[in-house]
């Protein structure tokens, strides 16, 4: 917010709506072309924009800034409309106020991506986007606040978890100002009528205060005790709501919040949220399985599994493979590691407690793998949007001196790709090791005990990164022909 140009754009209260409108237009373009355009993925907006550019943008944004996709999320404008048309007054069931549902949906999403070759099917991609709009519209149309973002949206969970390692955070500038603030607009919102507290009277209830001028945090993150990026969509409502201009987009030490364990507003303590730890661990392992889905050996594994299971159904085989690789194997590995760490350091904690404390340490490693993978697609295919746009415009009647040239190369020399991927992966490993060690020190104090508590987690991270290097060195193979005709 401090940089002059970007800062004043972001401070403008409609900046977010503009970004969202831009992304909504792109999403509509993806759906329209996906439904009615040519079903050849590289020649369709629904093949190129989501799987090459969107994923690359998300990875880069999280790495260099923060949760910028949620900030510009295309599902937000229709959702705003839903809040006006529908009651939006229900409370989300207590039993669902965890990340378990979102974790399940994330699994479903990754499975469908692989099982139905979404990258190769503009039509299915368009259906997926449409169902996303419907889900966000319906859920936030009936439930209060940003229920969809906080408890349902699988994409959002991906951002929340990986943004724990991002360099930016929405936070309070001057804690002293919050300490004297009596209106708490950043959480309750700003209304026509002031809350009343300032006049020393009884506080007014929201419905007694006239029109809502500016919403407060709909993810229930109260700024004064908000810590870190978990559950924060970078929506900037709090920034606009704060009457003292005391909330901003601030830089910070990335990944530091992974080893600290304060009571976080709207989230609680990380170490008391097994659902959150499970989500973080799931995403870490999913990074590797997702990449495994596009190298040659995966097809041998699938063929073998098909023979053993006596089936030729790819969705079934991939379902079992992902269940094993994203849920069972991680549970087993993490269980063993937590056990070892607990007994080596004599922490006296259960496996679940131990895993819930240390599991977050693997986030940077998983993030490194996601970045390596998604950036690869983006760097190789980023320019593909140029001839595609040209063809689109030509279709609309604009004429160009030359026909679109499809033979565009990668954004960086091809020989840079592998080293770049390895750098991101190993950087992730390094940060993960640091985080694991810092957690150990916080848990059992410095010294040999911390080393013993750390060692099993360090080994797990090392093992995963070796698996990652192996993956990146494999020849790539991409199947999934989906011909519409």
């Amino acid at each position, binding site marked *: 917010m401090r940089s002059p140009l970007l800062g004043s754009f972001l401070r403008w209260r409609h900046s977010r709506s503009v970004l969202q*409108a831009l992304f909504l*237009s792109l999403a509509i373009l993806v759906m329209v072309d996906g439904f009615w*355009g040519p079903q*050849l*993925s590289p020649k*369709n907006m629904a*093949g*190129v924009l989501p799987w090459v550019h969107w994923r690359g943008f998300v990875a880069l944004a999280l790495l260099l800034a923060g949760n910028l996709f949620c900030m510009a999320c295309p599902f937000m*404008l229709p959702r705003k409309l839903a809040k006006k048309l529908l009651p939006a007054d229900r409370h989300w069931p207590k039993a669902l106020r965890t990340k378990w549902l979102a974790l399940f949906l994330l699994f479903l999403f990754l499975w469908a991506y692989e099982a139905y070759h979404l990258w190769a099917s503009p039509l299915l991609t368009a259906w997926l986007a449409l169902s996303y709009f419907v889900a966000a519209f319906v859920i936030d149309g009936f439930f209060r606040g940003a229920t969809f973002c906080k408890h349902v949206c699988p994409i959002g969970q991906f951002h929340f978890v990986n943004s724990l390692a991002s360099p930016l955070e929405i936070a309070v500038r001057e804690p002293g100002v919050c300490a004297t603030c009596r209106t708490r607009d950043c959480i309750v919102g700003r209304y026509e009528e002031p809350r009343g507290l300032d006049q020393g009277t009884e506080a007014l209830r929201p419905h007694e205060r006239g029109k809502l001028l500016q919403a407060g945090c709909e993810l229930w993150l109260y700024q004064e005790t908000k810590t870190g990026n978990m559950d924060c969509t970078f929506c900037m409502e709090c920034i606009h709501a704060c009457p003292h201009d005391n909330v901003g987009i601030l830089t910070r030490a990335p990944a530091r919040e992974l080893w600290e364990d304060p009571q976080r507003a709207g989230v609680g303590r990380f170490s008391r949220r097994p659902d959150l730890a499970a989500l973080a661990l799931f995403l870490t392992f999913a990074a590797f399985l997702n990449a495994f889905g596009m190298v040659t050996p995966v097809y041998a594994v699938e063929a073998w599994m098909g023979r053993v299971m006596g089936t030729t159904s790819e969705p079934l085989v991939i379902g079992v493979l992902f269940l094993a690789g994203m849920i069972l194997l991680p549970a087993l590995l993490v269980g063993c590691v937590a056990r070892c760490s607990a007994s080596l350091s004599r922490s006296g904690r259960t496996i679940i407690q131990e895993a819930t404390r240390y599991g977050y340490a693997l986030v940077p490693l998983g993030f490194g793998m996601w970045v390596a993978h998604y950036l690869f697609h983006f760097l190789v295919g980023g320019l593909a949007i140029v001839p595609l746009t040209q063809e689109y415009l030509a279709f609309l009647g604009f004429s160009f001196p030359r026909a679109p040239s499809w033979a565009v190369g*990668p954004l960086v020399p091809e020989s840079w790709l592998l080293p770049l991927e390895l750098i991101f992966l190993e950087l992730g490993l390094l940060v993960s090791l640091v985080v694991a060690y810092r957690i150990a020190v916080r848990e059992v104090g410095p010294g040999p005990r911390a080393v013993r508590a750390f060692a099993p987690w360090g080994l797990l991270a090392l093992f995963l990164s070796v698996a990652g290097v192996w993956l990146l060195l494999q020849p790539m193979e991409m199947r999934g022909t989906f011909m519409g005709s």
Partner: protein
Amino acid sequence: MKSALLPVLTFPVLILLALLLGACRGEMERGDPGLVLDVAISPTPPAVGPARLIITLEDTAGAPVEGAEIVVEGNMSHAGMVPVVDTAQAEGPGSYGISDFRFTMAGDWILTLRATLPDGRWVRAVRPTKVVGRVGGSP
């Protein structure tokens, strides 16, 4: 309410935009129905690396058609992979060829061939092609 104005205004614009942009961009056209374009690949199935494409262009009666410019574009089923584009050389009556069409990666490819005649007639053919890996593994 000021904050609602902008989103509400953008909606009609977006819908309009969508209708304008995509409504009728259907499947790729196939061109002149009087022309038949086909391709054979050697080896079959092709492996990562160079492959030979043997292309034939005939009319519906089976008579060879000469003098066409034929461009072959290989795409992976995954968007954003660098496509392979090459131009065929005439090799005989109605017969054209590319001696080393380089498949850069294993997996599912889609070959799109487009033949254009000097009189402006053209025809397009689309051929899904499975390319096997060089190193073991492939079932």
